[in-house]
Protein backbone atom coordinates (compact mmCIF):
# COMPACT_ATOMS: atom_id res chain seq x y z
CA UNK A 1 0.00 0.00 0.00
CA UNK A 2 2.89 2.35 0.84
CA UNK A 3 4.52 1.42 -2.48
CA UNK A 4 1.31 2.15 -4.38
CA UNK A 5 0.93 5.50 -2.67
CA UNK A 6 4.49 6.59 -3.43
CA UNK A 7 4.18 5.40 -7.04
CA UNK A 8 0.92 7.31 -7.47
CA UNK A 9 2.54 10.37 -5.99
CA UNK A 10 5.39 10.25 -8.49
CA UNK A 11 2.98 9.80 -11.40
CA UNK A 12 1.56 13.18 -10.47
CA UNK A 13 4.73 15.14 -9.79
CA UNK A 14 7.49 13.41 -11.72
CA UNK A 15 6.18 12.22 -15.04
CA UNK A 16 9.70 12.55 -16.47
CA UNK A 17 10.87 9.83 -14.14
CA UNK A 18 13.87 11.44 -12.40
CA UNK A 19 12.69 10.46 -8.94
CA UNK A 20 12.48 6.92 -7.58
CA UNK A 21 9.59 5.89 -5.37
CA UNK A 22 10.44 4.30 -2.05
CA UNK A 23 8.66 0.97 -2.02
CA UNK A 24 9.45 -0.24 1.49
CA UNK A 25 8.97 1.73 4.68
CA UNK A 26 11.94 -0.14 6.07
CA UNK A 27 14.18 1.37 3.38
CA UNK A 28 12.98 4.91 4.07
CA UNK A 29 14.96 5.31 7.26
CA UNK A 30 18.32 4.56 5.68
CA UNK A 31 17.92 6.87 2.72
CA UNK A 32 20.37 9.59 3.67
CA UNK A 33 21.98 12.08 1.31
CA UNK A 34 25.12 10.56 -0.25
CA UNK A 35 23.91 7.04 0.53
CA UNK A 36 24.89 4.53 -2.11
CA UNK A 37 22.26 2.96 -4.31
CA UNK A 38 22.77 0.25 -6.90
CA UNK A 39 20.95 0.41 -10.20
CA UNK A 40 20.41 -2.88 -11.92
CA UNK A 41 19.59 -2.78 -15.60
CA UNK A 42 16.96 -5.13 -16.88
CA UNK A 43 17.83 -8.21 -18.91
CA UNK A 44 15.03 -7.59 -21.36
CA UNK A 45 14.50 -4.27 -23.01
CA UNK A 46 11.10 -3.73 -21.43
CA UNK A 47 12.33 -4.03 -17.87
CA UNK A 48 12.71 -0.86 -15.93
CA UNK A 49 15.94 -0.55 -13.93
CA UNK A 50 15.72 -1.55 -10.29
CA UNK A 51 17.24 0.50 -7.53
CA UNK A 52 18.50 -0.97 -4.29
CA UNK A 53 19.43 1.45 -1.49
CA UNK A 54 22.45 0.33 0.52
CA UNK A 55 23.41 1.03 4.10
CA UNK A 56 26.72 2.57 2.95
CA UNK A 57 27.53 6.14 1.97
CA UNK A 58 29.96 7.43 -0.63
CA UNK A 59 32.44 8.25 2.14
CA UNK A 60 32.45 4.59 3.24
CA UNK A 61 33.89 3.38 -0.06
CA UNK A 62 36.46 6.12 -0.67
CA UNK A 63 40.12 5.32 -0.22
CA UNK A 64 40.66 8.31 2.09
CA UNK A 65 38.53 8.56 5.17
CA UNK A 66 38.05 12.30 5.59
CA UNK A 67 35.25 12.87 3.12
CA UNK A 68 33.09 15.77 4.32
CA UNK A 69 29.35 15.41 4.69
CA UNK A 70 27.03 17.02 2.17
CA UNK A 71 25.97 20.63 2.20
CA UNK A 72 22.21 20.26 2.36
CA UNK A 73 19.86 22.58 0.52
CA UNK A 74 16.30 22.31 1.73
CA UNK A 75 13.17 23.66 0.08
CA UNK A 76 9.39 23.24 -0.02
CA UNK A 77 8.36 20.62 -2.53
CA UNK A 78 4.60 20.29 -2.73
CA UNK A 79 1.50 19.65 -0.68
CA UNK A 80 0.03 16.42 -1.88
CA UNK A 81 -3.39 14.90 -1.47
CA UNK A 82 -4.62 12.25 -3.87
CA UNK A 83 -7.75 10.17 -4.01
CA UNK A 84 -8.18 7.32 -6.44
CA UNK A 85 -11.27 5.30 -7.05
CA UNK A 86 -11.67 2.33 -9.30
CA UNK A 87 -14.99 0.87 -10.21
CA UNK A 88 -15.65 -2.24 -12.17
CA UNK A 89 -18.93 -3.88 -12.75
CA UNK A 90 -19.45 -7.00 -14.71
CA UNK A 91 -20.85 -10.41 -15.00
CA UNK A 92 -19.23 -13.26 -16.79
CA UNK A 93 -20.58 -16.48 -18.11
CA UNK A 94 -18.37 -19.22 -19.36
CA UNK A 95 -18.05 -22.94 -19.51
CA UNK A 96 -15.09 -24.48 -17.76
CA UNK A 97 -15.13 -28.15 -18.54
CA UNK A 98 -18.61 -29.31 -17.79
CA UNK A 99 -19.28 -26.70 -15.15
CA UNK A 100 -21.40 -23.79 -16.15
CA UNK A 101 -20.34 -20.64 -14.37
CA UNK A 102 -22.31 -17.55 -13.82
CA UNK A 103 -20.42 -14.91 -11.94
CA UNK A 104 -21.17 -11.33 -11.20
CA UNK A 105 -18.80 -8.94 -9.56
CA UNK A 106 -18.99 -5.40 -8.43
CA UNK A 107 -16.11 -3.76 -6.71
CA UNK A 108 -14.79 -0.49 -5.50
CA UNK A 109 -11.20 0.22 -4.60
CA UNK A 110 -10.53 3.55 -3.05
CA UNK A 111 -7.10 4.79 -2.19
CA UNK A 112 -6.41 7.98 -0.38
CA UNK A 113 -2.93 9.37 0.01
CA UNK A 114 -2.35 12.41 2.12
CA UNK A 115 1.33 13.02 2.43
CA UNK A 116 0.65 16.62 3.40
CA UNK A 117 3.35 19.21 2.96
CA UNK A 118 6.53 17.72 1.55
CA UNK A 119 10.07 19.04 1.74
CA UNK A 120 12.92 18.39 -0.61
CA UNK A 121 16.50 17.96 0.59
CA UNK A 122 19.31 18.12 -1.94
CA UNK A 123 23.04 17.76 -1.65
CA UNK A 124 24.82 20.79 -3.07
CA UNK A 125 26.24 19.26 -6.23
CA UNK A 126 28.90 21.91 -6.80
CA UNK A 127 30.23 21.27 -3.33
CA UNK A 128 30.02 17.51 -3.80
CA UNK A 129 31.98 17.68 -7.05
CA UNK A 130 34.60 19.94 -5.50
CA UNK A 131 34.96 17.60 -2.54
CA UNK A 132 35.32 14.59 -4.82
CA UNK A 133 38.11 15.93 -7.02
CA UNK A 134 41.18 13.66 -6.96
CA UNK A 135 39.52 11.15 -4.69
CA UNK A 136 39.33 7.49 -5.55
CA UNK A 137 37.04 4.65 -4.67
CA UNK A 138 38.51 1.82 -2.61
CA UNK A 139 38.18 -0.88 -5.24
CA UNK A 140 39.12 -3.56 -2.71
CA UNK A 141 35.86 -2.88 -0.85
CA UNK A 142 33.66 -5.95 -1.02
CA UNK A 143 30.76 -4.00 -2.50
CA UNK A 144 32.87 -2.65 -5.34
CA UNK A 145 34.47 -6.04 -5.92
CA UNK A 146 31.00 -7.47 -6.24
CA UNK A 147 29.75 -4.76 -8.58
CA UNK A 148 32.89 -4.94 -10.70
CA UNK A 149 32.06 -8.54 -11.44
CA UNK A 150 28.50 -7.66 -12.41
CA UNK A 151 28.24 -5.86 -15.67
CA UNK A 152 24.57 -5.13 -15.12
CA UNK A 153 25.00 -3.01 -12.00
CA UNK A 154 25.72 0.69 -11.74
CA UNK A 155 26.73 2.50 -8.56
CA UNK A 156 24.69 5.62 -7.77
CA UNK A 157 24.76 8.28 -5.07
CA UNK A 158 21.59 9.59 -3.51
CA UNK A 159 21.55 13.35 -4.02
CA UNK A 160 17.98 14.36 -3.28
CA UNK A 161 15.08 13.08 -1.25
CA UNK A 162 11.46 14.04 -0.75
CA UNK A 163 10.32 13.83 2.85
CA UNK A 164 7.13 14.17 4.79
CA UNK A 165 6.95 16.94 7.38
CA UNK A 166 4.04 15.63 9.40
CA UNK A 167 2.38 12.36 10.30
CA UNK A 168 0.26 11.20 7.41
CA UNK A 169 -2.18 8.47 6.62
CA UNK A 170 -2.51 6.14 3.71
CA UNK A 171 -5.74 4.23 3.63
CA UNK A 172 -7.22 1.66 1.37
CA UNK A 173 -10.82 0.68 1.41
CA UNK A 174 -11.94 -2.29 -0.54
CA UNK A 175 -15.44 -3.54 -0.90
CA UNK A 176 -16.14 -6.39 -3.22
CA UNK A 177 -19.61 -7.78 -3.65
CA UNK A 178 -19.88 -11.02 -5.51
CA UNK A 179 -22.47 -13.44 -6.70
CA UNK A 180 -21.62 -16.64 -8.38
CA UNK A 181 -22.65 -20.16 -8.98
CA UNK A 182 -19.41 -21.87 -9.78
CA UNK A 183 -15.71 -22.04 -9.17
CA UNK A 184 -14.70 -18.96 -11.06
CA UNK A 185 -12.96 -16.44 -8.93
CA UNK A 186 -10.15 -14.04 -8.45
CA UNK A 187 -7.89 -14.30 -5.48
CA UNK A 188 -6.55 -10.89 -4.64
CA UNK A 189 -8.10 -7.80 -3.29
CA UNK A 190 -6.58 -5.66 -6.00
CA UNK A 191 -8.84 -7.15 -8.61
CA UNK A 192 -12.31 -5.82 -8.69
CA UNK A 193 -13.95 -8.74 -10.49
CA UNK A 194 -14.15 -11.57 -8.06
CA UNK A 195 -16.18 -14.59 -7.22
CA UNK A 196 -16.09 -17.39 -4.73
CA UNK A 197 -17.00 -21.01 -5.05
CA UNK A 198 -20.56 -20.62 -4.05
CA UNK A 199 -23.19 -18.18 -2.82
CA UNK A 200 -23.22 -14.45 -2.26
CA UNK A 201 -21.01 -12.51 0.05
CA UNK A 202 -19.59 -9.11 0.69
CA UNK A 203 -15.96 -8.60 1.53
CA UNK A 204 -15.18 -5.35 3.19
CA UNK A 205 -11.77 -4.36 4.36
CA UNK A 206 -10.11 -1.18 5.51
CA UNK A 207 -6.40 -0.83 5.95
CA UNK A 208 -4.86 2.32 7.34
CA UNK A 209 -1.16 3.12 7.57
CA UNK A 210 0.04 6.05 9.60
CA UNK A 211 3.55 7.04 8.60
CA UNK A 212 5.65 9.35 10.72
CA UNK A 213 7.06 12.76 9.88
CA UNK A 214 10.46 12.91 8.15
CA UNK A 215 9.80 9.74 6.15
CA UNK A 216 11.49 9.69 2.76
CA UNK A 217 8.95 8.78 0.09
CA UNK A 218 11.05 9.39 -3.03
CA UNK A 219 14.66 10.04 -3.89
CA UNK A 220 16.90 10.99 -6.76
CA UNK A 221 20.33 9.63 -7.61
CA UNK A 222 23.31 10.41 -9.79
CA UNK A 223 25.12 7.54 -11.48
CA UNK A 224 28.86 7.13 -11.08
CA UNK A 225 31.26 6.14 -13.81
CA UNK A 226 34.14 4.32 -12.14
CA UNK A 227 37.50 4.01 -13.88
CA UNK A 228 39.93 1.14 -13.54
CA UNK A 229 42.10 3.01 -11.03
CA UNK A 230 39.15 3.93 -8.81
CA UNK A 231 38.74 7.48 -10.05
CA UNK A 232 35.12 8.31 -10.62
CA UNK A 233 32.95 10.94 -12.19
CA UNK A 234 29.33 11.93 -11.64
CA UNK A 235 27.10 11.45 -14.67
CA UNK A 236 25.33 14.77 -14.53
CA UNK A 237 24.20 15.05 -18.12
CA UNK A 238 21.20 13.21 -19.50
CA UNK A 239 22.42 10.47 -21.81
CA UNK A 240 25.64 9.93 -19.89
CA UNK A 241 25.49 6.58 -18.18
CA UNK A 242 27.38 5.25 -15.22
CA UNK A 243 29.09 1.93 -14.84
CA UNK A 244 32.49 0.40 -14.41
CA UNK A 245 35.33 0.60 -16.86
CA UNK A 246 36.26 -2.96 -17.73
CA UNK A 247 39.72 -4.10 -18.65
CA UNK A 248 38.60 -7.32 -20.15
CA UNK A 249 35.21 -8.82 -20.63
CA UNK A 250 34.35 -11.43 -18.08
CA UNK A 251 30.79 -12.60 -18.02
CA UNK A 252 29.51 -13.24 -14.51
CA UNK A 253 26.26 -14.76 -15.65
CA UNK A 254 26.04 -18.39 -14.63
CA UNK A 255 24.00 -19.21 -17.70
CA UNK A 256 25.55 -19.59 -21.09
CA UNK A 257 24.92 -16.19 -22.71
CA UNK A 258 24.10 -18.01 -25.94
CA UNK A 259 20.83 -18.99 -24.33
CA UNK A 260 19.91 -15.32 -24.02
CA UNK A 261 21.13 -14.48 -27.49
CA UNK A 262 18.71 -17.02 -28.91
CA UNK A 263 15.93 -14.76 -27.79
CA UNK A 264 14.71 -12.39 -30.42
CA UNK A 265 14.25 -9.43 -28.10
CA UNK A 266 17.68 -9.07 -26.59
CA UNK A 267 18.86 -6.74 -29.33
CA UNK A 268 15.63 -4.83 -29.80
CA UNK A 269 15.90 -1.04 -29.61
CA UNK A 270 14.93 0.59 -26.34
Amino acid sequence: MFAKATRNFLKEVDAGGDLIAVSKLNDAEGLQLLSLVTKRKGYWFWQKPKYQPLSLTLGDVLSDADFPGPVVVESDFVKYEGKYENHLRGSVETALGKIQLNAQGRGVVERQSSFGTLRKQEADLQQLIRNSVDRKLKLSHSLLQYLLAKRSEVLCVLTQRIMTTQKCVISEHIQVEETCGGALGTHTKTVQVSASEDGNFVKDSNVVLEIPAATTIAYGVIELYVKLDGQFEFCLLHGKHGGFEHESHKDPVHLDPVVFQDFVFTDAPD
Partner: protein
Amino acid sequence: GSHGASLLDELLSTVHQATQQSEKNFHPFEVLPEDRRSALWGVMHSLLFDKELLAALEQVYDSVVGGVWPPLGLQSVVAGLKPLQQQELEAFLSLVGCRIQGGNPSTGSEVIDPQLFVTAHFLVSALAEMPEDAAALLGTCCELQTVPVLCYLLHTLSDKGVSDLGDPALAALVDADRFAVVQRLFALADIDLRRLQSSVRGVILKDPHIFPVVLSISLSGLCALSRGQ
Protein backbone atom coordinates in the same frame (compact mmCIF):
# COMPACT_ATOMS: atom_id res chain seq x y z
CA GLY B 1 10.10 12.72 -32.16
CA SER B 2 6.66 13.49 -33.51
CA HIS B 3 3.65 11.79 -31.99
CA GLY B 4 1.59 11.62 -35.14
CA ALA B 5 0.10 8.70 -37.01
CA SER B 6 3.52 7.42 -38.03
CA LEU B 7 4.50 6.79 -34.41
CA LEU B 8 1.26 4.90 -33.74
CA ASP B 9 1.78 2.85 -36.90
CA GLU B 10 5.27 2.09 -35.73
CA LEU B 11 4.00 0.97 -32.33
CA LEU B 12 1.34 -1.23 -33.86
CA SER B 13 4.00 -2.74 -36.06
CA THR B 14 6.21 -3.33 -33.00
CA VAL B 15 3.36 -5.10 -31.22
CA HIS B 16 2.77 -7.16 -34.33
CA GLN B 17 6.42 -8.20 -34.46
CA ALA B 18 6.47 -8.81 -30.71
CA THR B 19 3.47 -11.12 -30.99
CA GLN B 20 5.05 -13.15 -33.78
CA GLN B 21 8.51 -13.27 -32.25
CA SER B 22 7.45 -14.06 -28.72
CA GLU B 23 5.47 -17.03 -30.03
CA LYS B 24 8.78 -18.45 -31.27
CA ASN B 25 10.51 -17.63 -28.01
CA PHE B 26 7.97 -19.61 -26.02
CA HIS B 27 8.45 -22.76 -28.04
CA PRO B 28 10.24 -24.50 -25.09
CA PHE B 29 6.93 -24.35 -23.20
CA GLU B 30 5.11 -26.06 -26.04
CA VAL B 31 7.48 -29.00 -26.24
CA LEU B 32 7.33 -29.73 -22.51
CA PRO B 33 5.79 -33.06 -21.55
CA GLU B 34 2.13 -32.50 -20.88
CA ASP B 35 2.21 -33.29 -17.17
CA ARG B 36 5.10 -30.90 -16.57
CA ARG B 37 3.51 -28.16 -18.63
CA SER B 38 0.29 -28.65 -16.76
CA ALA B 39 2.08 -28.40 -13.40
CA LEU B 40 3.91 -25.27 -14.53
CA TRP B 41 0.63 -23.78 -15.72
CA GLY B 42 -0.84 -24.42 -12.27
CA VAL B 43 1.96 -22.57 -10.49
CA MET B 44 1.90 -19.78 -13.06
CA HIS B 45 -1.80 -19.38 -12.42
CA SER B 46 -1.08 -18.81 -8.72
CA LEU B 47 1.65 -16.33 -9.60
CA LEU B 48 -0.75 -14.19 -11.59
CA PHE B 49 -2.84 -13.56 -8.51
CA ASP B 50 0.04 -13.11 -6.13
CA LYS B 51 2.22 -10.06 -6.73
CA GLU B 52 4.30 -10.87 -3.68
CA LEU B 53 5.17 -14.29 -5.01
CA LEU B 54 5.82 -12.91 -8.47
CA ALA B 55 8.20 -10.31 -7.00
CA ALA B 56 9.98 -12.98 -4.94
CA LEU B 57 10.42 -15.16 -7.99
CA GLU B 58 11.81 -12.26 -9.94
CA GLN B 59 14.28 -11.66 -7.10
CA VAL B 60 15.43 -15.25 -7.28
CA TYR B 61 15.84 -14.94 -11.03
CA ASP B 62 17.85 -11.76 -10.60
CA SER B 63 20.09 -13.55 -8.11
CA VAL B 64 20.61 -16.58 -10.30
CA VAL B 65 21.16 -14.72 -13.55
CA GLY B 66 23.01 -11.61 -12.53
CA GLY B 67 23.61 -11.51 -8.83
CA VAL B 68 22.51 -8.75 -6.48
CA TRP B 69 24.20 -6.96 -3.62
CA PRO B 70 24.15 -8.10 -0.93
CA PRO B 71 24.03 -11.70 -2.20
CA LEU B 72 20.62 -12.96 -1.20
CA GLY B 73 20.12 -16.36 0.28
CA LEU B 74 17.00 -18.14 -0.83
CA GLN B 75 15.94 -18.12 2.79
CA SER B 76 15.95 -14.33 2.92
CA VAL B 77 13.90 -14.13 -0.28
CA VAL B 78 11.32 -16.58 0.94
CA ALA B 79 11.39 -15.45 4.56
CA GLY B 80 8.44 -13.12 4.10
CA LEU B 81 6.43 -15.65 2.15
CA LYS B 82 3.73 -17.88 3.54
CA PRO B 83 4.45 -21.64 3.54
CA LEU B 84 2.19 -22.21 0.52
CA GLN B 85 3.92 -19.42 -1.39
CA GLN B 86 7.30 -20.93 -0.53
CA GLN B 87 6.16 -24.28 -1.84
CA GLU B 88 4.94 -22.71 -5.04
CA LEU B 89 8.17 -20.80 -5.56
CA GLU B 90 10.23 -23.94 -5.06
CA ALA B 91 7.89 -25.93 -7.31
CA PHE B 92 8.23 -23.32 -10.04
CA LEU B 93 12.03 -23.36 -9.90
CA SER B 94 12.08 -27.12 -9.95
CA LEU B 95 9.71 -27.27 -12.93
CA VAL B 96 11.84 -24.86 -14.96
CA GLY B 97 14.96 -26.86 -14.22
CA CYS B 98 16.67 -24.81 -11.55
CA ARG B 99 18.19 -26.36 -8.46
CA ILE B 100 19.46 -24.10 -5.69
CA GLN B 101 22.16 -25.60 -3.54
CA GLY B 102 23.12 -24.30 -0.13
CA GLY B 103 20.22 -21.86 -0.22
CA ASN B 104 22.05 -19.21 -2.23
CA PRO B 105 20.77 -18.49 -5.75
CA SER B 106 23.76 -16.23 -6.52
CA THR B 107 26.42 -18.81 -5.94
CA GLY B 108 24.78 -22.18 -5.57
CA SER B 109 22.32 -22.46 -8.37
CA GLU B 110 22.40 -25.12 -11.01
CA VAL B 111 20.30 -24.63 -14.09
CA ILE B 112 19.61 -28.01 -15.61
CA ASP B 113 17.57 -26.75 -18.54
CA PRO B 114 18.87 -23.27 -19.43
CA GLN B 115 16.54 -22.81 -22.39
CA LEU B 116 13.44 -23.52 -20.33
CA PHE B 117 14.75 -21.49 -17.40
CA VAL B 118 15.31 -18.43 -19.60
CA THR B 119 11.96 -18.91 -21.33
CA ALA B 120 10.25 -18.83 -17.95
CA HIS B 121 12.31 -15.76 -17.00
CA PHE B 122 11.11 -14.12 -20.19
CA LEU B 123 7.49 -14.62 -19.12
CA VAL B 124 7.94 -13.90 -15.41
CA SER B 125 9.75 -10.62 -16.08
CA ALA B 126 7.07 -9.53 -18.57
CA LEU B 127 4.33 -10.30 -16.04
CA ALA B 128 6.22 -8.49 -13.29
CA GLU B 129 6.59 -5.44 -15.51
CA MET B 130 2.86 -5.21 -16.25
CA PRO B 131 1.08 -2.31 -14.56
CA GLU B 132 -0.87 -2.58 -11.33
CA ASP B 133 -3.54 -5.32 -11.35
CA ALA B 134 -2.85 -6.40 -14.93
CA ALA B 135 -1.34 -9.75 -13.94
CA ALA B 136 -4.41 -10.58 -11.87
CA LEU B 137 -6.69 -9.57 -14.75
CA LEU B 138 -4.64 -11.89 -16.94
CA GLY B 139 -5.31 -14.58 -14.34
CA THR B 140 -9.02 -13.90 -14.62
CA CYS B 141 -8.72 -14.20 -18.40
CA CYS B 142 -6.97 -17.55 -17.89
CA GLU B 143 -9.91 -18.73 -15.82
CA LEU B 144 -12.29 -17.53 -18.47
CA GLN B 145 -10.17 -19.43 -21.01
CA THR B 146 -9.86 -16.34 -23.15
CA VAL B 147 -6.05 -16.16 -23.34
CA PRO B 148 -5.82 -17.72 -26.84
CA VAL B 149 -8.65 -15.41 -27.92
CA LEU B 150 -6.73 -12.39 -26.67
CA CYS B 151 -3.56 -13.52 -28.41
CA TYR B 152 -5.53 -13.79 -31.62
CA LEU B 153 -7.22 -10.45 -30.99
CA LEU B 154 -3.92 -8.68 -30.43
CA HIS B 155 -2.53 -10.30 -33.54
CA THR B 156 -5.42 -9.17 -35.74
CA LEU B 157 -5.58 -5.73 -34.12
CA SER B 158 -1.91 -5.08 -34.69
CA ASP B 159 -2.42 -6.09 -38.28
CA LYS B 160 -5.32 -3.79 -39.13
CA GLY B 161 -6.42 -1.99 -35.98
CA VAL B 162 -9.89 -3.53 -36.29
CA SER B 163 -11.09 -7.09 -35.66
CA ASP B 164 -14.35 -8.54 -36.85
CA LEU B 165 -16.45 -9.95 -34.01
CA GLY B 166 -18.07 -12.24 -36.55
CA ASP B 167 -14.78 -14.14 -36.62
CA PRO B 168 -15.52 -17.42 -34.77
CA ALA B 169 -12.13 -17.18 -33.03
CA LEU B 170 -13.34 -14.01 -31.30
CA ALA B 171 -16.80 -15.33 -30.39
CA ALA B 172 -15.93 -15.24 -26.69
CA LEU B 173 -15.74 -11.46 -26.83
CA VAL B 174 -19.33 -10.99 -27.95
CA ASP B 175 -20.37 -11.23 -24.32
CA ALA B 176 -20.42 -7.62 -23.11
CA ASP B 177 -19.25 -8.34 -19.59
CA ARG B 178 -16.38 -10.53 -20.65
CA PHE B 179 -15.44 -7.84 -23.11
CA ALA B 180 -15.39 -5.35 -20.23
CA VAL B 181 -12.76 -7.44 -18.43
CA VAL B 182 -10.65 -7.61 -21.60
CA GLN B 183 -11.14 -3.90 -22.19
CA ARG B 184 -9.84 -3.14 -18.73
CA LEU B 185 -6.81 -5.36 -19.20
CA PHE B 186 -5.97 -3.70 -22.50
CA ALA B 187 -6.52 -0.24 -21.03
CA LEU B 188 -3.89 -1.03 -18.40
CA ALA B 189 -1.55 -1.83 -21.29
CA ASP B 190 -2.26 1.52 -22.95
CA ILE B 191 -4.54 0.05 -25.59
CA ASP B 192 -7.95 1.63 -25.95
CA LEU B 193 -10.25 -1.20 -26.99
CA ARG B 194 -13.63 -0.09 -28.33
CA ARG B 195 -16.50 -2.22 -29.38
CA LEU B 196 -18.21 -1.06 -32.53
CA GLN B 197 -21.37 -2.69 -33.90
CA SER B 198 -19.81 -5.85 -35.24
CA SER B 199 -16.14 -5.27 -34.66
CA VAL B 200 -13.52 -4.32 -32.11
CA ARG B 201 -11.21 -1.40 -32.65
CA GLY B 202 -7.94 -1.10 -30.80
CA VAL B 203 -5.97 2.09 -30.60
CA ILE B 204 -2.62 2.34 -28.91
CA LEU B 205 -2.75 5.49 -26.83
CA LYS B 206 -0.47 8.33 -27.66
CA ASP B 207 2.75 8.36 -25.65
CA PRO B 208 2.30 4.79 -24.53
CA HIS B 209 4.73 3.01 -22.33
CA ILE B 210 6.17 -0.32 -23.32
CA PHE B 211 3.03 -2.02 -22.02
CA PRO B 212 1.44 -3.07 -25.35
CA VAL B 213 4.55 -5.10 -26.13
CA VAL B 214 4.73 -6.50 -22.59
CA LEU B 215 1.07 -7.52 -22.81
CA SER B 216 1.76 -9.23 -26.11
CA ILE B 217 4.68 -11.16 -24.61
CA SER B 218 2.68 -12.13 -21.51
CA LEU B 219 -0.25 -13.36 -23.57
CA SER B 220 2.00 -15.36 -25.90
CA GLY B 221 3.74 -17.01 -22.94
CA LEU B 222 0.51 -17.89 -21.18
CA CYS B 223 -0.97 -19.13 -24.43
CA ALA B 224 2.00 -21.44 -25.05
CA LEU B 225 1.78 -22.73 -21.50
CA SER B 226 -1.97 -23.21 -21.55
CA ARG B 227 -2.10 -25.44 -24.62
CA GLY B 228 -3.95 -28.58 -23.73
CA GLN B 229 -5.36 -27.14 -20.51
